């Protein structure tokens, strides 16, 4: 063990290839993995999803600390006790943050930009604080990109726009989007 400098030698290793060089490599292996799953929503979230089907936003409260969870969890994260008191929220809320997306999941360009954000839901009478709150991530409609950019959308009062009852399936998409409360 000798006391040499801790600096690595330059030039640093790594063989960079251009895209076409890479595609022409001998022994290049192309492989498509396909893993299929069936995700269980569990006790608490299933009940929440059934509520959406009925046009209700349900939360669950921790009997020990009074926090109300939307989306519901089966246990309180703080007390680690079972949550068991279900409450129906009015559904209204305020926009916590909102953005204008010009790209889809696979990064292709969207024809029409889409507005999505976080809704801080009203949970009257239940314990919440400045840092944590009952809320949902969802699409936002009836708000223009300009309102997102100039900031007037943040803090705006919104309510859910439900799909027609017969089209609801017990999915987060039973709410089409959150839209501004009239007046």
């Amino acid at each position, binding site marked *: *063990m*000798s*006391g*040499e*400098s*801790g*600096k*690595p*030698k*330059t*030039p*640093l*290793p*790594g*063989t*960079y*290839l*251009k895209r076409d060089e*890479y595609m022409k*490599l001998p022994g290049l292996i192309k*492989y498509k993995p396909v893993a299929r799953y069936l*995700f269980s*929503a569990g006790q608490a*979230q299933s009940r929440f*999803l059934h509520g959406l089907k009925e046009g209700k936003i349900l939360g669950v409260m921790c009997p020990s600390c009074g926090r109300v*969870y*939307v*989306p519901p969890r089966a246990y309180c994260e703080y007390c680690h006790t079972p949550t068991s008191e279900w409450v129906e929220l009015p559904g209204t809320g305020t926009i*916590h*943050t*909102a*953005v*204008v*997306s*010009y*790209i*889809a*999941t*696979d*990064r292709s360009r969207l024809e029409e*930009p889409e507005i*999505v*954000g*976080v809704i801080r839901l009203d949970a009257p009478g239940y314990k919440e604080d*400045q*840092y*944590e*709150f*009952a*809320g*949902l*991530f*969802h*699409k936002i409609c009836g708000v223009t990109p300009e309102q*997102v950019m100039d*900031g007037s959308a*943040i803090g705006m009062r919104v309510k859910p726009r439900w799909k027609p009852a017969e089209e609801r399936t017990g*999915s*987060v*998409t039973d709410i089409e989007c959150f839209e501004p409360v009239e007046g």
Partner: protein
Amino acid sequence: MRANLHVKDRVGIVGAGMTLFRRRFLETPRELAWEAVKQALDSAGLTLRDIDCVVIGTAPDAFDGIHMNGEYLADGAGGFGKPVDRIYIGGGTGVMVPISAWWHAASGHCNTVLAVAEEKMSHAMPHPQYVFAYIWDPILERPLGPNLIWIFAMEMRRYMHKCGAKKEDIALVSVKNKRNALDHPAAQAAANITVDDVLNSELLVWPVNRLDISPVSDGAVALIIAREKVARRITDSPVWIEGVGFTLDNTHWYNRELGYPRYVEYAARMAYRMAGIERPWKEIDVAEPYDPFDYKELHHIEGLQLAPRCQAWKLLKEGYFDRDGELPTSPSGGLLGVGNPIAAAGLMKVAELFWQLRYEAGKRQVKKPVHKGVAQAWGDLMQAGTVIVLGN
């Protein structure tokens, strides 16, 4: 937590090595790890014989496209026939790797530890963003068709609203880091750009443009960590690991304030307490906060208590965080400039502090004298904070 740790021995970093950071390498992930490890061993004048334990870090297996990537990397990382441990917490991995290496050595269990981080993002086609789709909750989030950038854009928008920052204020981070990276031999995205270049680059999800984001990269980094008595035999100037901290929040990111990273604050406080640092904004000389997006550097500077809340962007404008400023941040060039092979990017930040604290960073060396540095990484669904404090 109180700093009543029973540590058998002080632990120091004695060597570092890395590959280039680039999009698309001929090397397999294993070969990248091997190249970084060889560099690190050479830099300390050691061979694998001198290494007791190995810690490997890579982020989700889906990036390299190799299930159980840690096990796959074991031999490339020099781990065959040795105790090996894999760290796996998304972007937070890079700084968690030397933290894990620290407790291997501080416990007295291993005299020398190789800390290796590797990521190869270019395997996934057509674009790694496709693979990122699976970090979203399958029931409550994926049905909405999210793109990874949404979540960052939402956080950035909230930060802008809460702190009154504009896009052009935040773009300065990208300008600074890409400029700093011009002096980094591994850099992939170094450039002299202006705020206008950032604002005029492709708009992806307002407020995020293409140049607000770090690139897609392949790369590997390795550090050698040793107990004090061994470290002193290897080099005259080990860089000591003085504090470590890590926190995990839950995955319900939309149930909390997005404008401030509480989990980073908790991790930072843990590390500072251990390092005996009471006023980090005065006592830290150089910082490497995690910067996969430009606003994230500001977000993390505040979480690291290096600036008052909502003040980081104002200080940035004054040149406070420049390489010749009062508290240089990301003098390496960060992820925005050097590149972002997820796990390796975090470890690159720790390697940069190692070179800075030994005054070996060459043109990247910050102007002020340095005694203490902090590096931080963030990861998973806006939930993991990992922090390490180094001193010379």
